[in-house]
């Protein structure tokens, strides 16, 4: 019951903030994305308490959340800096909120939560004990001043979002957190269906319904997705948040609704609080975002501001507790990741008008840069490049984990130019997937050079839903176009 109330409170809280922040998203979408928004703000509240060294309690979290809400409310009222947020839009009467969409979304969420709380299933590994452990430490009144063992590892590897959720779950009176993971995975599956359905609303029912059913079946049964459903870890949530942020770019292109970009930046910021390596993914996101809205400097600035406000304070804080040499993430690596994001933000915000269109193809430049870097490394560290290549190819992409997906990604990429002739916006998805794979290869290479362990094989899970979404979009694009031509 306590866990049920906790997961339900994520929805309610998210609803309060999404009404405030994303008024121009369709109401059903706004209601639907509430849990993703809620988990973000709850984590930010816990994060603030950790930073100021105050024990985490529900009362304090509640006060901070009210403070966040009021702060956003008043800054929106008195500022026009965020173009898609119009003041007064969220000042609706209660009757306007209680509509069929809201009731439908709320009941669906309610039922999913209750089912997974009652099922009581969970899949745990060694890492799960640390997520549970840091949550309990915080819930028992622990602070940074108590200097728990492996502090730097806990800050960078087990906090913020997942550890914060375990902490709040304990504070709600529940014993250990398990139902949040399957709830969010199934909810995310619903988000994919909702997005696909709205993007392909003009498809005939004869095509659309079988495709939706096939999408659900393939996504749910896919081993990378299915493995994460009950898994107590950060990879599942990282996969969800990374996928939603990239999907938001595509949804913006199709709807021209700027709220999708604001939402995408917010979700991306939260994804970096789930796993630090998502600070690499953020560069991929913004390189694609710049390509599609290079002409709207104000919007780019807004997106960066939202992302950096969410992400930067936490990582600057953890930096102060991270040694220069460490077996987990070290201070140099955090500095490089932060610097890369800040430099890219400055470049994309202040790039002269004359160059903006010429340099707008950041994804392409990014890929060229990666290949050039690997060539330079091949000259400097040939053995490491060979090891990274062999490991990445034979133990990941061509292993039983990935071989089917690798083969189809290759084929989809070969045929991409033909599909892009019908729908050019679809390149957003393959760009993000190919760039992510190349950056994961770089992680393996770096780890090999500095002799540090890496989790490349687990990180590759993050893009599987995006890939499946791409294949379905591509297929429906082709059959729809074929039909029109026939």
């Amino acid at each position, binding site marked *: 019951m306590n866990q049920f109330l906790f997961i339900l409170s994520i929805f309610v809280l998210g609803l309060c903030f999404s009404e405030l922040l994303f008024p121009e998203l369709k109401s059903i979408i706004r209601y639907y994305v509430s849990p993703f928004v809620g988990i973000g703000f709850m984590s930010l509240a816990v994060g603030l308490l950790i930073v100021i060294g105050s024990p985490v309690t529900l009362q304090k979290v509640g006060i901070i959340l009210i403070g966040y809400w009021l702060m956003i409310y008043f800054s929106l009222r008195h500022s026009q800096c965020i173009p898609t947020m119009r003041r007064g839009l969220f000042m609706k009467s209660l009757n306007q909120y209680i509509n069929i969409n809201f009731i439908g979304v709320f009941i669906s969420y309610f039922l999913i939560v209750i089912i997974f709380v009652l099922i*009581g299933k*969970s*899949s*745990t*590994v*060694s890492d*799960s*004990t*640390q997520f*549970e*452990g*840091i949550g*309990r*430490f915080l819930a*028992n*009144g*622990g602070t940074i001043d*108590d200097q*728990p*063992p*492996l502090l730097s590892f*806990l800050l960078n590897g087990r906090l913020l979002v997942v550890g914060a959720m375990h902490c709040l779950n304990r504070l709600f009176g*529940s*014993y*250990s957190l*398990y139902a949040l993971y399957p709830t969010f995975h199934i909810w995310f599956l619903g988000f994919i269906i909702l997005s696909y359905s709205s993007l392909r609303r003009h498809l005939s029912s004869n095509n659309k319904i079988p495709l939706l059913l*096939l999408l659900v079946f*393939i996504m749910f*049964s*896919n*081993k*990378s997705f*299915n*493995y994460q459903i009950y898994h*107590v870890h950060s990879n599942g949530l990282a996969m969800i948040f990374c996928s939603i942020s990239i999907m938001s770019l595509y949804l913006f292109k199709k709807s021209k609704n700027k709220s999708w970009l604001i939402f995408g930046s917010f979700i991306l910021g939260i994804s970096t609080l789930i796993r630090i390596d998502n600070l690499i993914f953020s560069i991929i996101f913004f390189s694609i975002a710049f390509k599609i809205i290079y002409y709207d400097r104000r919007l780019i600035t807004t997106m960066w501001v939202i992302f950096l406000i969410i992400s930067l304070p936490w990582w600057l804080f953890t930096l102060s507790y991270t040694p220069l040499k460490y077996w987990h993430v070290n201070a140099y690596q955090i500095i490089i990741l932060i610097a890369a994001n800040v430099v890219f933000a400055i470049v994309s915000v202040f790039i002269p008008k004359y160059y903006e269109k010429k340099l707008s193809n950041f994804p392409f430049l990014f890929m060229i840069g990666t290949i050039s870097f690997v060539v330079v490394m091949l000259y400097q560290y040939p053995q490491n490049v060979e090891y990274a290549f062999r490991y990445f190819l*034979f*133990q990941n992409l*061509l*292993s*039983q*984990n990935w*071989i*089917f*997906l690798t*083969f*189809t990604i290759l*084929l*989809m990429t070969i*045929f991409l130019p*033909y*599909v892009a002739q019908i729908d050019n916006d679809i390149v957003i998805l393959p760009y993000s997937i190919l760039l992510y794979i190349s950056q994961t290869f770089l992680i393996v290479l770096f780890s090999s050079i500095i002799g540090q362990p890496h989790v490349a094989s687990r990180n590759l899970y993050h893009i599987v839903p995006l890939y*499946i979404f791409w*294949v379905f979009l*591509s*297929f429906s694009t*082709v*059959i729809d*176009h*074929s039909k029109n*031509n026939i």
Partner: protein
Amino acid sequence: MKRVLVYFHIFAFSLIVLDNFIFFNYLKDHSDYIKDKLSTIEPLRTLLGTIIIDFDYRKPGKKKLKDYYVDDKIVEIIGKKRASQQKLFFDHYRDNGSILSNSIIMADIVHEFMEGKIDTLFLPFTDDVYCFDIEETEWCQIQSIDLFVHPIIVSIMRYNPIIRLKQYIDLKNETNISITGSDDVLFNLVFHTGEEKKLNYYLNVYKNEVFVSSNEQ
């Protein structure tokens, strides 16, 4: 071209469908058999050595665990609802094959049943080793214990935790609560009586039984 694209997508779908968890688990469970069969084909031998890898990190051959039971004493201390939640927690962590399970199960029950009784929990380890074996028990990443028992202080101290048969019988008679952990390890909590103030507690081991008691043996 459009028709080619349609067929090609159908081909892609059929490959992606194969990437499902049922087929994957079958491959994983039979990877050695498949390797053996296919490696009889000469050109495939080298390739299969790298493609089909066994990445399963769990301990092989899961044993059937002894039942954990919620007895009257546990229910009396933490209540029926909490006892059932605790049982679920053990269900999740006891049989996952993780080498960390016993460390956190011990920490969990110490926090749950003895938070008000312990000042410092002494553990017979050193902090520079990842795993320790004491008799038939294994203790890994002991740093996690600190997180679970906070605000109880955890102190690492060199002492002999192995007890003799007579001490075992004495402690067993004084045991208040027994709970089965991972790998059939039995945790016994011995509460001190008479004094209200918090005491120091020690971890002792006899074969596969662990005692947390205020007596330094």
